[in-house]
């Protein structure tokens, strides 16, 4: 191995020779073509029928959930939503290549990974409605999920914060001798934050078993990738930090699955980070507060519709004889019914109790918080109509 820290084995040149961007050519792994047939020389990863269908159904479920919840936001039933339409393969197929003991530290567009782990429709809804059954006790906006039992770290809004944290979490797993790694999801926009650079650098130097999974989906709200970075995407940065790196077609379930599976094996065996850059596209708006018609063309969106990851995997499954049209329609209808029924049921559950407002600030509420709560409750008792969602349960 080269003594990379002291550059003692570095090659010499004797004329000014500036290395230009573009000389590092990082190819993209693609196994399934957009029509759902594998490339001739490509090797389809070993997936049994059950797992292939689970991946497919999870992607389907997430798309239905996204559609329904965006509509629910428009109707004023929830305050906010972020859809992952077009990016389902990136989150679901990568999560499928992990083990349940692996920690997921995500941004906010990886509901597919969480659904794959078994987060229930009801749990999704509880969080979005901030009700009394929600694990995070109504502290955060909709889509900031978290579930300790499923090894899914609760999401934080500020971009990129989870990247150095994932390095630290993975280091802890290694030190504890766990057969587990951490995967950290983020977008190409978040990769501009200082946290990204700190996180990759520390993971590489401290030998942390972590997968950095960048969804390069083309836009950070309105800012297109070309105004986000110059250079060859995010993958080239991995190499700069000494992190093993692969670029994959993020709309190709098999490419994502195969790369993540291998990345996991490497991270665990060699105790090192691996960066995956998944090239995909955010077909949805950034969030329900955004309107993409102001900054990109319908033509561009239509071109990416042709690369729909769900249609692509669906075509492969049908060719393989593991899925038929009739069964698929039945499944879809079932998912739609379930989402709709849960939505109607869960929105009636009362919001979390007022006492919870001072919980979890510290391990136990100190005197000043107790005092403030007690004053608040006295005040609410005097004006119950001003606090209608909570005063009935004082």
């Amino acid at each position, binding site marked *: 191995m080269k003594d990379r820290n002291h550059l003692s084995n570095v090659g010499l040149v004797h004329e000014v020779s500036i290395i230009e961007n573009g000389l590092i050519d990082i190819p993209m792994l693609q196994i399934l073509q957009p029509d759902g047939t594998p490339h001739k020389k490509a090797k389809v990863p070993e997936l049994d029928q059950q797992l292939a269908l689970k991946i497919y159904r999870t992607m389907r479920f997430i798309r239905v959930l996204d559609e329904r919840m965006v509509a629910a936001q428009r109707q004023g039933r929830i305050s906010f939503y972020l859809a992952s339409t077009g990016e389902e393969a990136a989150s679901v197929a990568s999560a499928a290549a992990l083990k349940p003991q692996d920690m997921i530290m995500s941004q906010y567009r990886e509901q597919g990974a969480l659904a794959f782990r078994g987060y229930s429709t009801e749990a999704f809804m509880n969080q979005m409605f901030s009700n009394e059954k929600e694990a995070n006790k109504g502290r955060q906006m909709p889509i900031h999920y978290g579930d300790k039992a499923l090894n899914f770290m609760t999401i934080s809004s500020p971009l990129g914060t989870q990247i150095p944290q994932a390095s630290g979490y993975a280091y802890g797993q290694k030190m504890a001798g766990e057969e587990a790694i951490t995967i950290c999801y983020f977008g190409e926009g978040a990769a501009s*934050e200082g*946290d990204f650079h700190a996180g990759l650098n520390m993971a590489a130097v401290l030998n942390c078993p972590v997968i950095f999974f960048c969804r390069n989906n083309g836009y950070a709200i309105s800012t297109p990738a070309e105004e986000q970075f110059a250079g060859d995407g995010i993958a080239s940065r991995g190499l700069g930090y000494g992190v093993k790196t692969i670029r994959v077609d993020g709309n190709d379930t098999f490419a994502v699955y195969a790369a993540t599976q291998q990345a996991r094996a490497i991270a665990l065996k060699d105790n090192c980070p691996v960066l995956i850059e998944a090239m995909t596209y955010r077909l949805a708006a950034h969030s329900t507060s955004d309107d993409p018609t102001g900054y990109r063309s319908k033509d561009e969106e239509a071109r990416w519709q042709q690369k729909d990851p769900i249609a692509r995997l669906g075509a492969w499954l049908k060719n393989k004889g593991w899925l038929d049209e009739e069964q698929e329609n039945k499944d879809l209808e079932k998912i739609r019914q379930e989402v709709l029924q849960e939505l109607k049921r869960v929105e009636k559950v009362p919001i979390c109790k007022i006492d919870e407002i001072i919980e979890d600030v510290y391990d136990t509420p100190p005197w000043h918080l107790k005092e403030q709560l007690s004053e608040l409750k006295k005040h609410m008792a005097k004006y119950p109509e*001003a606090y209608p969602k*909570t005063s009935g349960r004082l």
Partner: protein
Amino acid sequence: MAKMNLLQAINNALITAMEENEKVMVFGEDVGHFGGVFRATSNLQQKFGRDRCFNTPLTEQGIIGFANGLASQGSVPVAEIQFGDYIFPAFDQIVNETAKWRYRSGGQFSCGTLTIRTPYGGGIAGGHYHSQSPEAYFAHTPGLKIVIPRNPYQAKGLLLASIRDDNPVLFMEPKRLYRASTGEVPEEDYTLPLGKAEITKSGTDITLLAWGAQMEVIDKATELAQKEGIDAEVIDLRSILPWDAETVCESVVKTGRLLISHEAPLTGGFASEIAATVQDKCFLNLESPIARVCGLDTPYPLAHEKEYMPDHLKVFEAIKRTVHY
């Protein structure tokens, strides 16, 4: 005069500043073609070109570090941080660099031309990462000015004054009022003084002090108190740093009572600093303890936002307690 909302007034101020001085540059996340997530920078790129109004990569520390360099070079940067909650990655650049550049160089270099714009505050169902009021963190930093407008008229006059002030200014915009607050705004150029409070209503029984979006709450509470025969004097602080202790103290000497209200948590909030100063300067004039009606000492919650907020009813009750002490 034209009727504008707070966003339009900010946009109008930016156009005025950019037309007047070609060194003024406006940048931040999504501020270019898109006009910012709240559209405060709409049409600026179209009008002034991509060199003067542009998107940056998503890096708050980068935005302010870049702005510091730009300001020290003599340009006039107006940098946007998309939400006040996201200003913390830039904390080091603001607190250790922006604010201290002039001091540490013995006045040879400075970031005096820099203005940082950021939306702040709650009441929009934003949960804790879209609702915080971080003014007190920055008020502990010598070298910065901190300005918060409460309506469109102030927004234009104070923003223009901030851009032209030879000190770095953190200009915090009450996002709850962006579209809700409308009013007459002169189309011509004007500025309002930094560091000067505004008495919005004179009264005799108690001084009520707030800033930004909290002024609406104070006004509502004042009306309730009026019905009970309490005549309050109302002051909009407008500048947090430096703050107008003279106007506040003169008022307290007259009324004998003071109530301060802000959305940020009570402990270590800027109300504490005001209370300490007023106590020092007006001790013998005070007829009751200085009241603070603030956010709870918890992170800003989503589901219990209404309960968390220092609303008009909480202020009203505190007015009565203070007056009848």
